[in-house]
């Protein structure tokens, strides 16, 4: 069973996405803070990370960069999902090492497709 770490401070989104992915046979780990998310990633080494850009403790871009720069977890694909959807946001996320960008709101199916795409690649 593939492990997916979701970092998002929006409880409703976090829970619904976790429930949805859990329903599709993924092991889901949830985190509502950036630093905590990084630590969980280091400890549990998920197969994929879903990251929101707006977090209470630190900027999502920074989290992304930190994940990509930490040894052992730098090859885990990070998919940013955010309500921020300007070109510059996408570019910045990509500069920070994010593999893909999903704009909120999204169709649950789309999320599933993207997640599957990266996990299969792996």
């Amino acid at each position, binding site marked *: 069973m593939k492990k997916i770490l979701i970092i998002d401070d*929006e409880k409703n989104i976090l829970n619904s996405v976790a429930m*949805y992915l859990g*329903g599709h046979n993924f092991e889901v780990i949830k985190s509502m803070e950036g630093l905590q998310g990084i630590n969980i990633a280091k400890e549990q080494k998920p197969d994929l990370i879903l990251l929101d850009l707006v977090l209470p403790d630190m900027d999502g871009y920074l989290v992304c960069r930190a994940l990509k720069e930490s040894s052992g977890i730098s090859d885990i694909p990070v998919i940013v999902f955010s*309500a921020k959807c300007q070109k510059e946001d996408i570019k910045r996320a990509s500069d920070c090492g994010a593999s893909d960008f999903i704009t*909120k*709101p999204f169709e*649950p199916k789309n999320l599933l497709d993207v997640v599957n795409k990266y996990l299969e690649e792996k």
Partner: protein
Amino acid sequence: MIYKTADSPVVFKISEKCMKRSLRYKIFTAFLLILLIFTSSNIWSIINFNRLSKSIDSIMESNYKSIEAAQYMIVAIERQDSAELEHMFSKSDETVAAFNKNGKVFLGWLSRAEDNITEEGEAEILQRINESYTKYITSFTQLIILDRNNNQSELNDYYYTVILPLFEETKSACRDLLALNQNSMVDRKDSSLNVARGATITTAVISVITILMGLYMVSFLARKIVRPLYDFIDRTKRISEGNYNQQLEISGDDEIAQLAYEFNMMAEKLVHYDQMNINKLLEEKNKSDAIVNSIGDGIIVTDIDYKIALLNRKAESIFNVREAESVGRHLLEIINNKELFGMFRSIREKSEGWANIKPGEIEIKVEEGTEYYTVNVRPIKMKGTEDIGAVALIQNVTELKEVDALKSDFISTVSHEFRTPLTSIAMGVGLLQEGIPGTLTDKQKELVSVIKEDSDRLNKLVEELLDLSKLESGKMQMDLQSHNINEIADYVLKTLKLQAEEINAKITKNIPKDISKARIDVNKITWVVTNLVGNALRYVPKDGTGKIDISAKEAYNKIIISVSDNGAGIKDSIKKKIFDKFVQGADGSGSAGLGLAICKEIVRAHGGDIWVESSPGNGSTFIFTVNTL
């Protein structure tokens, strides 16, 4: 009397005193003077003639009669002498009668001569004649007595010794009288000649004087009348040229002076009226100046050479310049703003079709930050002439901009805030639909799909709002590339094929294959066409007769794309605001009414126009233009 000031106009009345100085009086006087001189010259001549005739008369009176008398007396005495001699030889009575007859003639002449003693010594001569003649007569009586004695020799002796000397003496006295009078006549003739000569000279002198005086007076009058007239002509000419401030010098108070006075009054009135007109114009100008200066927006007027003609108070404060220092100078020289100048210049370049020129925007740095102004430049047109310049209305839109930015921010923030709950709603719906939390009943599934539909709609609305706000604030960049409209139409046909089939509507394409490429952001224009066709699909009849046509043609470096349908058409009241936000076509089904507003913004961002041609019952045609390369 000099009449110069208009403030105290003196009414010019022809008084008796003035009469004396009037021109008529002057002319009359001058002619009278000439007449007087002429008359006196004539009188002088008459006097001279008189003198001459008197002189001749005196010759006649005093000399000629005496001469005549002397001559006749000589003739008479000679005849008496002849009669005497005859008598001596013939002794006839006839000779006595002849003697007596001539004696009477002699005495007659003698008495005439005695009546006409004029010369000195004449009386003595006449005395002598009288005495000797008396003796002569007496001697003749003696002779007759002697004759009776018939002594011829004694008779002869008597004749020669007594009578002949007496005869000679009388005759000689008569000759003296003749001579005296003849000499005197010669003298008189000389004096007459002198009188005549004198008269000739004086008459000539007087004539010359008369002529000179006459000439002088005529020239004086001419000068007096004609010279001011030249001045009049000159001044009148100048007045007719519009130079009203003309004053004539007034000297004297004759008719010319009077005319000059009236002329000056007229000129003053003209100046006054002119001034009044100017004042009126000035008043009007001040009024319009006040209006222009009271306008809360900046106004700059330039001539066709971009020289500033007017700059109102607001414009002064916007650009921190002074109108007084700006007028007549080049726009760039006063306001170093290339964008502003560019807008003025574009007016000149696009003198036709200027109505399409959109207001420009300029930024001006001030202490508190940046101020934004929209600039609306329009050519100034006068009837029947070329443009005479351009006028720019400069409106401060900083606050509007700020409000706009605030609005954009607000919309952006609100949209973002919407997205998060929408995401969880979408997730929830996805979970339910996929039955992850458990299987749903059909009724529940129906409800969930309603939730899904409306959350999708809300989602779309948020997206559109964001797009619109970006478009409106100019944040959305257009990625302009050359594209074939055919491809876009094909894509739209493909995308909406299923939707059209659902209602059995027919979508056709009518675009020339060789149409020029358009310079567009392909995604945005595709969105526009999709939106227009999508809208049309909502309004065409659903009974299988629905028709939609996408067509395009080329004109004036533009591509005109139209989407027409055979739907219900649009009411005029809606047509006007159909491109506004939140306006719905008819029943309001489906769309939130942002689609056309976005279309408008996209087309505008491409430098094109969008409009609709429609009337209820005749379907609608949405038309927009984009530029070719």
